[in-house]
């Protein structure tokens, strides 16, 4: 039994190794990819997608057609054309004026960072819980009768057959 379990485990290794290689490769591509907007208009789009329309529910400045959003888009376009501020600085400029209700993508600093950290923590806890539970199930299933158990059962059966 021990031999077959070890063999089963060994047979799974290439699969896991391949999966590991793929994950590392994808992470490397994702991290080093020369992303980001290329033209000023793409920059305006990227910034206005990160800003919420100050008078709508869950709509970005990019999508929203109302007057306030049009004004904000125009302001972003002007500032991008001037080229004096980074994307984050332009977003802070708008955020400051519209009293902080305009961020669609939460910041990764301060208390806002919890929004990013909590799902990861929950995921890790859930996976740990599953691993723990599966282990316990497996341990229960792996239980096999020992020689002593067989002797007991045989004795009981014999006793039952011999009995009245």
């Amino acid at each position, binding site marked *: 039994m021990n031999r077959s379990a070890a063999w089963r485990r060994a047979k799974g290794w290439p699969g896991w190794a391949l999966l590991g290689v793929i994950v590392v490769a994808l992470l490397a591509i994702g991290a080093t990819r020369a992303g980001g907007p290329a033209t000023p208009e793409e920059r305006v789009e990227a910034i206005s997608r990160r800003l919420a329309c100050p008078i709508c529910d869950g709509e970005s400045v990019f999508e929203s057609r109302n007057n306030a959003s049009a004004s904000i888009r125009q*302001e972003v376009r002007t500032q991008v054309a001037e080229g004096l501020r980074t994307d984050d600085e332009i977003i802070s400029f708008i955020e400051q004026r519209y009293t902080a209700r305009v961020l669609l993508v939460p910041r990764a600093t301060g208390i806002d960072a919890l929004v990013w950290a909590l799902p990861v923590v929950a995921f890790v806890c859930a996976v740990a819980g599953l691993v723990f539970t599966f282990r316990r199930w497996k341990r229960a299933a792996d239980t096999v009768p020992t020689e002593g158990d067989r002797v007991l059962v045989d004795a009981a059966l014999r006793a039952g057959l011999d009995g009245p």
Partner: protein
Amino acid sequence: MPEGRRRIAPFIALAVALAVGALLIVLAGSSSARDESADTFLLDKPAPPVVSTLLSAEAGAADLAFDLSRRKGSWVVLNFFDPDCVPCIAEHDELVALDRQQRQLGDAGAELYTIINKGSDAEVRQWFAEKGGDWPKVRDPGGSISVAFGVAQVPETWVIDPNGIVRARLIGEVTAEGMGGLLQQLRETMS
């Protein structure tokens, strides 16, 4: 198993109770009343630059330039407006009364300016021709003035002191009486 579940249950109940309690505290702490002066990072800071043109009373006439920084020495009231906005229509008579009241104060009175948040020249001209109000109307091309002040919805009224410092932001309709009182109070705190 049932014992284990029973042992966890009080902790889950406690967690839910804590979450509900925290929510109640947050809700109780938020103010429902609209304050006289709304929050803005510009409060007690220099007003953003406002450089634009004034809408002439008649089409075809020359447009005068407007620069807020040249209004230093006077109290300035900026009213953000749009001819389609219903509260703006409701507020208008109060603005007419406010303008009259402030003119009566002479040099100490505040200057009223409309900032045209939306609407064509013709629309705005016709609106004021019908409803009255001969104070200057400032164009806001591309909405840059509105963004500089963080105005998302009209009407909004801002008070700027003779040093060019923002003293009040009022979201929604204002009254002549309320504005007159606020301006008087601000004048007294400055002198």
